[in-house]
């Protein structure tokens, strides 16, 4: 079966006042249906931009795609016009953003916002509404409203039909995020991109939201790209994970393999930095150095400046993603030696 989402060697430049930043340096990622991929990395590594790029939501004057492809079920997204992209958004690609407070329009009832998304989706796939396109506007709106109520129920909002007439400020943060998930799923998308969906929520609510996302994957036969900086979220929810650093994917693969046996020096350092019960006071491990300047990126491997294992050869060229143990892909030329040193 062809992959749902394939990003091949994506290069993105963002022009700014100071110059042109090479923010995505050859991103390669494959997501299949039924998989929940975590995209993890520190702030500024480019994970949000990757998500936005799939939906082409990054405006192209400052953004410029220098090379690469984004394929959705084989369809080349970068070659589509904005009008064609609009046909895919909400229908084949659903998106959830970080802050539930600002992502719902405060002046409209949530029912109305849900209905509009549903109607937009139904224009390209009338089956969503279970109502033929030939029917009058009123009938279609009614069907969309029914569907909206069902979606609210599915995401766990009590008393869904009545709540359709509520305004966003009448919901709590967690509830609003559920509404946003309902909005993202109402068009029955094939790919769901969630950009830090739980960062702005309480820990207890976080778990509920993640469970909700997970539960819907099978029902909709979706693939999910879950962008986050929280490894805990990844471990809890994802089936696969890709670790990003400074515009590169340094390690990707099944979650147990990546988190259980980290191969790339960055992944190792990341996992080592997480405090556990046994971490003694004053023994927090950080990572020395800072993220490189993307306008004048360092030559070769972008992690080399901070890498304990760096050699001269590392600065010659960007290391490609190579297959490694456990079904992973790792971008490091010293992989074998690092294994030995670590196990010694």
């Amino acid at each position, binding site marked *: 079966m062809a992959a749902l989402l394939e990003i091949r060697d994506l290069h993105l430049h963002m022009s700014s006042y100071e110059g042109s930043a090479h923010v995505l340096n050859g991103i390669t990622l494959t997501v299949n249906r039924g998989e929940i991929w975590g995209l993890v990395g520190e702030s500024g590594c480019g994970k949000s931009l990757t998500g936005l790029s799939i939906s082409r939501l990054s405006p192209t004057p400052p953004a410029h795609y220098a090379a690469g492809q984004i394929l959705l079920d084989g369809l080349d997204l970068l070659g589509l016009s904005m009008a064609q992209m609009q046909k895919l958004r909400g*229908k084949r690609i*659903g998106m959830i953003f970080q802050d539930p407070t*600002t992502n719902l329009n*405060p*002046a409209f009832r949530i029912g109305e916002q849900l209905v509009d998304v549903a109607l937009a989706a139904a224009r390209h796939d009338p089956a969503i509404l279970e109502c033929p396109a030939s029917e009058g506007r009123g009938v279609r709106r009614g069907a969309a409203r029914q569907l909206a109520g069902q979606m609210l129920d599915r995401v766990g909002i009590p008393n869904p039909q009545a709540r359709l007439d509520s305004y966003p400020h009448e919901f709590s943060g967690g509830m609003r995020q559920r509404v946003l998930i309902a*909005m993202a799923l109402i068009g029955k998308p094939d790919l769901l991109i969630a950009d830090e969906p739980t960062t702005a929520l309480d820990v207890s609510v976080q778990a509920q939201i993640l469970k909700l996302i997970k539960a819907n994957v099978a029902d909709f036969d979706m693939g999910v790209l879950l962008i986050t900086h929280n490894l805990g979220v990844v471990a809890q929810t994802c089936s696969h994970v890709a670790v990003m650093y400074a515009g590169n994917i340094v390690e990707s693969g099944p979650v147990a393999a990546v988190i259980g046996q980290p191969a790339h020096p960055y992944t190792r350092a990341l996992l080592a930095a997480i405090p556990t019960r046994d971490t003694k006071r004053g023994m927090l491990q950080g990572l020395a150095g800072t993220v490189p300047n993307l306008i004048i990126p360092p030559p070769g491997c972008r992690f080399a400046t901070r890498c304990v294992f760096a050699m001269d050869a590392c600065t010659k060229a960007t290391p490609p993603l190579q297959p490694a143990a456990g079904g992973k892909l790792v971008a490091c030329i010293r992989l074998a030696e690092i294994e030995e040193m670590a196990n010694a």
Partner: protein
Amino acid sequence: MLLFILRRLLMLIPVIIGLTVIMFAIARLLPGDPVGLAAGPNATQAEIAALAVEFGLDQPIWVQYWTYVTGLMQGDLGTSLLTRRPVAADIAAYLPATLELVFAAMAFAVLVGIPLGLVTAVWRNKWPDYLSQVAAIGAISMPRFFLGLLLQLCFAMWLMWLPLGGRLPIIVIPPPRFTGFMTIDSLIAGDWDTFTLSLRHLALPAIAMSLSPLATIMRMMRASTIEVMGQDYVMTARALGLSPRLIITKYVARNAISATLTVIGLYFGWLLGGTVLVETVFDWPGLGLYATKAIVSQDMMPVIGVALVIGLLFVLANLIIDVLYGVINPKVRYS
């Protein structure tokens, strides 16, 4: 919702009281000769003295104020020297004309200004936008009475498309008076011809008055539209595939309009004040013309009366705007 309206109504009372105090201060306490002015330039000393007693100027200030206020509550705003009628009766007769003009001007400004603001925001930084910005400043700088004169010159005198002034042609009998609005009354009477005529007479003065608020509404709408377009929820709407046209005409428009509404309230007051000049140019028989004629004849009571009534109208208008704002923006209802 009702509670919200009631609360706002209660807040009106101190304002109204304050208004009466100010008007009283102007009428009685300013240097100048109120009695001499009220008596008129041809009064004798005896008449002035009698009038002074009648005004109660020998009483202490608070008694004078009390008489003034009780008089107000009974609808007594003094007598006009010119028309020899109670000012209150005059105001009641001329008020609808002014209101009709103000509403027409406001409607025009809103109906043209809001879409223009939306359009210039969506197509900003291209040359039509730049031009409209300069034109807006020009519109605000243009004196209303000069504009009225120019419109008269151009459309009434040279092109002869529209009438010169007044509410209806002299030969036409006005419809029976229900609201005092020529437009509405002629509709009620089923008189289509008079309705069209009244609209034609309304056109030029309304446009002259509306240009400045139109420009400001356009600028405000443009600014708030730009701000709304940068909001997260607009990004979400785009991400979920809503068409740009729907996003702008339905969602962005409503969010942006609520910010512009507050300006509309302020402009209502400005319009009420500005009727003076435009009514003079177009011979429009409203409060403005009434006050103008009075002031030129040094007839003080009508001017004070008009000021008080317009102040009250302004306060009322702001209340209505507040309520409308509560309808559009549900969060405000709980404040």
